[in-house]
């Protein structure tokens, strides 16, 4: 029995997730990473035609990352934006927001309040059961469909374990900046996981995680502050998160199936800084506030099966039902008595999705030519409460928006190895859309392996972003306003090109050096923006397909490994050109490329004798500039150059294991440069013309200052 289990464990370990026998891994490649994202079959990263970047489990551990936002701060070309009004943290890649970036779990998109894979709140993606994260930059419309414009991020979860029983429990305590208290301040994380292999065929994983973020006060004074000077509330909203997941898997011969269930619950508290007085003459006024809490529930089901059909064809099929519902509970809070009253809870945004994707490959059983046929079906039912946007009718009554979006896609990818060295990979997707015109995406990839470990890749990809509810359905027309969404919008279209070189070589001394150089160009056309489309007789604001975006990126990473020492250094220059057209104001922005520099670096040193690993992560974000529309002092529309000041991000940690790796202690610090708000500076004053009365914010929430963590993990593995 014991032998069987060990065998099974070895099998699982060597094959990672959707393990696939075809790619016989020889001894020298065993150390290299296996990737699945955008691949026909799981294969070594070296053989991948796409330039896949990997964030390893070790990185996640070393950063003591609980959720995606903890880890992506260190990633080149990505920055994270946090909202002080609803507590969401979203990704921005190459200056494009989270609507252009798709997040997947085990190759299927993750539902969010408003999207399928897109606009995901990074803090809602727990990393407890994650094996690794794969990122592909650029438009991946063929393999990943709509909205995979700036890139995709695929989270590969753990399947099974190496022992009959794997039990682990973690407690993590963090300061939030310099704020910490046992309950009211700081961040408190507890988690537990159990993985069990019943026999060589069946395994089960169960996990739970609680993350209690007590908010970041900064200069604010919390919820019981009773003065009307704008200081009530929190700079970063308090948030409690609860995660539960379970996975049941079975495998026999060439048949594998797993079912994964994931529950996510979140409670975000918004405490309004505006105190509303109640006249209580002749006594002093009493005060209440209009507060709210956002309650999110996400249910994720994923059934996947893969294996061989007719002992030749490889199939991989996923069925998923996902639902995320964000409720808003509005209530009034009486400051003097600390009582809540007039509680009113209703669904704010929800998205329910039936999703299925499947692929069939290995038609020719020929190592030179592989061909994949795939389909993707998405049936999304989205709901926006009237208060979640600006949705009114002609009588100024609030209107809820409920719409179903369906798309039926077929795609096909071929991978042709012209020689051992040269692979070519054309792909095509056709998408039948219920709401928009049918879309298609195409891609072409080339890979050439030169001598001495030099790998060259070239790829072209297309994708598209479908308009969101705000863009389609916003409506607010009265005597003073005319702001309208546009149901006739067409999807934005993107094209990206990437040329990359990788080289890895081992020096005689045992040291290893790896370099990577990538040049990317991307454009997005028909970008949707709200513009003034009419001035006389009344001003009409409308969403239209009007703007253009172009981006150049050159990035390079160098990695040096010697014994326990690993150093990585990366640099990226991004040039972004945006052409903003103010339509009726007859003004178009300068579309020159505005460049910014990012650097990242990590150094780790492992001392096996002490079971201790030291690591430092550093990222420098250069000034990011863009043109924004505004009004000059004479009241005329004008473009202003706005720049986000440079800032640096540094995390460091020490991890030590005790008692034969059973007990693991990680101590570290995040955000050593103590970044909180970063100023966004405009070269002249004036109001934004982005909306009828919208005023531009000048402080960006980027972090909550230098904070420290202590993470204790207990692992118990036995057979």
């Amino acid at each position: 029995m014991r032998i069987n289990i060990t065998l099974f464990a070895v099998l699982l370990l060597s094959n990672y997730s959707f393990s696939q026998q075809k790619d016989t891994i020889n001894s020298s490649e065993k150390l290299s990473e296996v990737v699945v994202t955008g691949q026909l079959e799981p294969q070594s990263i070296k053989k991948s035609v796409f330039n896949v970047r990997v964030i390893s489990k070790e990185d996640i551990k070393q950063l003591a990352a609980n959720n995606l936002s903890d880890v992506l701060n260190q990633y080149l070309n990505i920055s994270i934006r946090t909202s002080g009004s609803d507590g969401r943290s979203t990704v921005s890649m190459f200056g494009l927001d989270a609507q252009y970036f798709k997040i997947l779990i085990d190759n299927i998109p993750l539902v969010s309040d408003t999207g399928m894979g897109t606009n995901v709140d990074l803090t809602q993606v727990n990393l407890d059961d994650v094996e690794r994260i794969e990122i592909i930059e650029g438009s991946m419309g063929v393999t990943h469909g709509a909205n995979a414009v700036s890139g995709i991020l695929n989270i590969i979860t753990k399947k099974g374990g190496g022992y009959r029983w794997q039990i682990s429990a973690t407690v993590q305590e963090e300061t939030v900046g310099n704020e910490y208290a046992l309950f009211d301040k700081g961040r408190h994380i507890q988690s537990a996981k159990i993985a069990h292999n019943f026999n060589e065929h069946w395994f089960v994983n169960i996990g739970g995680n609680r993350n209690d973020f007590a908010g970041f006060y900064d200069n604010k004074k919390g919820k019981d502050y009773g003065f009307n000077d704008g200081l009530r509330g929190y700079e970063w909203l308090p948030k409690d998160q609860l995660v539960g997941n379970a996975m049941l898997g079975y495998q026999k011969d060439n048949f594998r199936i797993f079912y994964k269930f994931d529950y996510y619950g979140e409670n975000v508290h918004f405490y309004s800084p505006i105190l509303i007085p109640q006249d209580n003459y002749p006594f002093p006024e009493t005060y209440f506030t209009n507060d709210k809490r956002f309650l999110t529930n996400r249910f994720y089901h994923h059934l996947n099966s893969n294996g061989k059909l007719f002992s030749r064809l490889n199939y991989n099929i996923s069925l998923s039902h996902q639902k995320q519902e964000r409720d808003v509970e509005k209530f009034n809070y009486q400051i003097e008595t600390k009582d809540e009253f007039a509680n009113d809870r209703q669904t704010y945004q929800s998205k329910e999705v039936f999703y299925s994707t499947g692929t069939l490959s290995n038609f020719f059983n020929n190592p030179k030519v592989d061909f994949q046929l795939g389909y993707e079906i998405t049936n999304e039912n989205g709901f926006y409460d009237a208060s979640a946007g600006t949705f009114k009718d002609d009588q100024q009554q609030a209107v809820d928006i409920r719409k179903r979006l369906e798309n039926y896609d077929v795609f096909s990818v071929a991978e042709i190895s012209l020689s051992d060295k040269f692979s070519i990979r054309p792909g095509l997707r056709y998408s039948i859309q219920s709401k928009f015109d049918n879309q298609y995406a195409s891609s072409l990839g080339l890979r050439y392996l030169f001598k001495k470990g030099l790998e060259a890749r070239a790829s072209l990809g297309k994708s598209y972003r479908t308009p969101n509810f705000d863009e389609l359905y916003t409506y607010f027309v009265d005597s003073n306003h005319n702001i309208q969404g546009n149901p006739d919008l067409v999807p934005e279209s993107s094209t990206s090109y990437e040329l990359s070189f990788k080289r890895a070589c081992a020096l005689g001394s045992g040291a290893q050096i790896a370099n990577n150089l990538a040049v990317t160009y991307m454009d997005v056309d028909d970008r949707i923006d709200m513009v003034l489309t009419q001035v006389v007789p009344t001003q009409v604001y409308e969403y239209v397909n009007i703007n253009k975006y172009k981006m150049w990126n050159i990035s390079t990473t160098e990695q040096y490994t010697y014994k326990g020492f690993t150093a990585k250094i990366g640099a990226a220059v991004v040039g972004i050109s945006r052409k903003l057209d103010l339509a009726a104001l007859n003004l178009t922005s300068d579309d020159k490329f505005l460049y910014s520099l990012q650097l990242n670096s990590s150094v780790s040193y492992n001392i096996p004798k002490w079971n201790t690993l030291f690591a430092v992560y550093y990222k420098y974000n250069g000034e990011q500039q863009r043109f924004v529309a505004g009004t000059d002092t004479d009241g005329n529309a004008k473009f202003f150059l706005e720049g986000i000041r440079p800032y640096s991000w540094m995390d460091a940690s020490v991890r030590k294991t005790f008692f034969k790796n059973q007990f693991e202690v990680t101590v570290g610090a995040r955000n050593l440069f103590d970044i909180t708000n970063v100023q966004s500076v405009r070269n002249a004053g004036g109001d934004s013309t982005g909306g009828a009365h919208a005023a531009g914010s000048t402080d960006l929430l980027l972090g909550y200052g230098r904070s420290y963590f202590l993470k204790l993990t207990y692992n118990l593995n036995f057979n």
Partner: protein
Amino acid sequence: MKKNFILILSFVLLALGACSSDDEVAQPNAVAFASTSLNLSAETTPIEIKFASPTAAAGSLTLTYTETAVANGTDYSTTPAIAASKVIVPFEKNVSTVSFTFKKLKEAIEGEVKNVVFTISSVTINAVISENKSIQVNFNETASLGTALAPEVGGPFQQNQVYVDLSSGKMTSVLRTSWDLGFYSGADFKVVINTSVKMSAKQTTSTNIDEVQVEDETMLINQGSGIVAQVDDPSGDITKTAIATISSTDSENKVYVVNLGSNPGTAEPTVGAEGSATGTSRGWKKIRILRSGNDYKIQYADLAATTHQEVVITKNAAYNFTFFSLLDKKTVSVEPQKAQWDLNFTTFTNTTQGQTGLSPYHYADFVLSNLKGGALAYQVLTSEFAYDTFTLANVASAKFTADQRNIGPNWRGTSVAGPSGFPVSQFVLRTDRFYVVKDPAGNVYKLKFTGGANAEGKRGYPTFQYAILK
């Protein structure tokens, strides 16, 4: 193995945190007079004392008093009666107000200063005595020392204009749509249009009222539309009206096309929004105004009409204006006498700097001061002076500028940032400011707004407090 489970157990225990709870401290009650002064009109007057929350137990209040030129028993009496220089007012458990009765036994002669000041000296239950611990009961009409008022502008449609007289605490409410033109009673011959309904007036080249005129869409006042020259100067300067000074030479008095603006809405707006001008169009008229001796003569008709009606409108020096309704075809009573109001709660056609220059802009929740009657106001930020400690010595007379908008819309905000970046309508009271108001009689008050929306968040429920400055 056992050791392992103990470790796991300790982790579980660590993970389960107890919750902290706040200890509630019993708040003492508070007691005060409902206002700080009172002018006796009837023979018997109940004098109201308020508790901040219902009384926890039955008990009594002890009042002391100070007389000015009056004596208990001769000029007045109280129930309960004064005994040992005190009034003991009993109250029940669970009451929020209690009152005692003041009976005037002898009328005062006009002009005499006669009053009694009652002061709460103690209360038998756990309650603090608040700011209004005294009330001055005046035998004659005397300027109010201050109180709290809630002008009934009518909720989100704000269909009423409410004229407020601080010294008497009197409020006069009229429908905004009840009038169209105001004929100035001063020496000049000036005519104003109703600035509360988005009205506008365009001069034509014609002097013939029977000539057919057409509607002109550019006269409509919406965001960014409308023409500044076609509305009265919002500062209230009577020399800068849309309708030119009425000339004694008839041939100089042109015909005007008048857009009567919009009615208040009828469909309830979303909570936090206002519907003061979302209703139907009030229509169009053409008018021509002439002098008639020291009075006015108005000729008016529908735009397409080839005949007209004519009415003489007389000046009345007691009032700022004589008001006329083109729709009801008669003079109407709108403002109180010009010395008997200080503030007007109304909607208003202001002007704002837009993307295409200065343009008319309709405001709800506007507060005008009676500039023509001699009332002036200015704003004080609490960063300079606190309301409670502000006295007459702090008044800066130079700040009383000749602009009726010195309170204007500045006391409130109307939106907060919404989820999609667009502002969402919500009434926001600005509590960082208060106002100083000088009435036509020269009384100077400090005035602070205490609300503008009801508890549900619906607009059009302003409340304010004021106190005389001495």
